[in-house]
């Protein structure tokens, strides 16, 4: 009952060790919008938050309160840190719902309530390991800081950045300047190669010793499978819907295989957002698999 089921059984134990927590603790405060520029379909904001900028590590995120102190939209919006610069924390906002639309509309000088840095950062690979970074849409922004850190530590860095169309690409200049080879793909061919990132990943993964990915769940699953097939560790930064971002609401859980081989519903915010891709049971997301720890206690009444 407690043995791991599904893919992990088919391919052996995970290639990734569990990702350790960050060494810093999060802080909360009002941050002034000190930088703002449109990037294709997105808006990049730079928040003056020196405490967060100092502590932030690649892969971590910040959580914004939206709509001001009397807002009827209560839940925080969690967004990956796209980089830090001169005491500023940068994020790329994709305006979709009411919260992200409000955030993307904030102008220079506006103050927003921000909590961070949150979540577990990307673990660094052993010295000399060549890395492949894969970004989907605005998820590419979360890889810029990682690329810089890997380069600074002497790693070879290759990268793929893909999106549905040219205006949905992100951080192309930054990633392009930090990686070689660097491949851009779009579904519609409006920029770079026509097609999905997985095709480029298939070509570049042979030269890699570790893969890092951030983007939509479908892409993370596909890239994670490619890393497993190549026999190398792959880490993914997931984007799950979160209410709090700090680990108290229990809404952002995913079925994740732990160090003991057992699957638990793990909180994406404090136990992620970076997970070993081969520890996330992507096929079971949105279900309650019978072998998840505590699933046996969920049946209240006999069927």
């Amino acid at each position, binding site marked *: 009952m407690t043995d791991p089921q599904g893919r992990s059984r088919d391919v052996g134990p995970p290639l990734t060790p569990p990702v350790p927590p960050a060494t810093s603790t999060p802080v909360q405060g009002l941050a002034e919008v000190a930088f703002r520029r449109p990037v294709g379909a997105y808006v990049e904001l730079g928040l003056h938050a020196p405490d967060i900028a100092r502590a932030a590590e690649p892969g971590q995120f910040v959580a914004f309160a939206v709509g001001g102190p009397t807002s009827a939209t*209560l839940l925080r919006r969690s967004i990956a840190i796209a980089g830090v610069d001169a005491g500023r924390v940068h994020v790329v906002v994709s305006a979709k719902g009411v919260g992200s639309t409000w955030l993307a509309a904030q102008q220079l000088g506006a103050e927003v309530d921000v909590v961070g840095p949150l979540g577990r950062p990307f673990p660094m690979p052993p010295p000399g390991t060549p890395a492949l970074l894969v970004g989907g849409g605005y998820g590419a922004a979360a890889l810029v800081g990682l690329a810089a850190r890997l380069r600074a530590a002497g790693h070879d860095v290759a990268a793929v950045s893909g999106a549905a169309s040219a205006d949905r690409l992100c951080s192309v200049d930054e990633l392009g300047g930090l990686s070689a080879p660097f491949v851009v793909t779009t579904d519609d061919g409006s920029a770079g190669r026509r097609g999905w990132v997985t095709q480029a990943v298939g070509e570049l993964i042979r030269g890699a010793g570790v893969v890092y990915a951030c983007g939509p769940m479908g892409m993370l699953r596909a890239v994670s499978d490619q890393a497993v097939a190549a026999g190398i560790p792959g880490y993914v930064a997931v984007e799950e819907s979160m209410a709090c971002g700090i680990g108290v609401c229990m809404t952002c859980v995913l079925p994740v295989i732990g160090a003991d081989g057992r699957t638990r519903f793990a909180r994406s915010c404090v136990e992620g957002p970076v997970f070993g891709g081969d520890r996330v049971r992507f096929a079971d997301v949105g279900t309650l698999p019978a072998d998840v720890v505590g699933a046996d206690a969920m049946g209240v009444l006999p069927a």
Partner: protein
Amino acid sequence: MSIEPAPPAGELAAPSVDMQASIGGVPVVSPVLTASGCSAFGAELDPFFDLTSIGAVVTKSVQLRPRSGRATPRMAETPSGMLNSIGLQGPGIDGLLAEELPWLARRGARALVSIAGTRVEHFAELATRLRGVPGVLGLEVNISCPNVESRGEVFACDPVAAADVVAAVREVADPAQPVYAKLSPDVTDIVSVAAACADAGATGLSMINTLLGLVIDPDTMRPVLGGVTGGLSGPAIRPVALRCVWQVHQALPDVPILGMGGIRSGLDALQFVLAGAGAVSVGTAVFNDPSAPARIHAELAQALGERGFGRLTDAIGYAHRRPDQPAGRLSRGPQ
């Protein structure tokens, strides 16, 4: 003529209000607590405020066995609130006793442990396991659970079933630990459930739990939540919660009430105190502002001072009193 006197100018700057409160007779340094299910087991909030400065951490409901919780999606945002369907994910009582409660005790924080079950004897066993545990201030009995022996009807919706649970818990619980029954607003007459719980030995009453709600995604045209329905919380439910506290305090003025439901500011908390709550829990507001419990404590102290109260306890139930009845510093009467 209004009974509200203009506060003397000198007291505006630093109102000094005695904020000591009581949870069923146990003194606590603040009337502000966290709310069950909205603060996990406290540790995650430690970076944002001093856990020892609030009345207690009210834990996520614990059951006998570890629980996975429900499949996602577990949350839907709603106007001034949210719907949740977590399914009481948690470590079970063994995990709580081994990890979370010792951590809170080391930290010097006090825990009001929320217990849940699907049979009366589950609740009693949990209360037994929690006897004498360091740092445990008391028990909050989450009776908004389906009762296996009553085809899944929620204990809190039946005064008899609710009383059965409370009586069983009170019988075996540590006598030093007050027992609060957490009431559901989804009933025809909350006063009758409250009275049944009080008669069965509840030291106090926590109110309210979430209201059952539903959100349908207009794109998929299906319910958003994996569990279909979910519990509505947040400021949207505050007037309902306040009404429940008012009605129960009016009927049972001697029964301590821990008030909760959409409290986001000190003035919100003040309304609950005025309606009859001796202490309050801050729940969904923590998702918006993780330092909310400490902020609300300060705002409530300020608000009480501005209204001429020297002690929190003088304000409890104040809204029920006739305008000519003395209260707190106002005992000097309107001049």
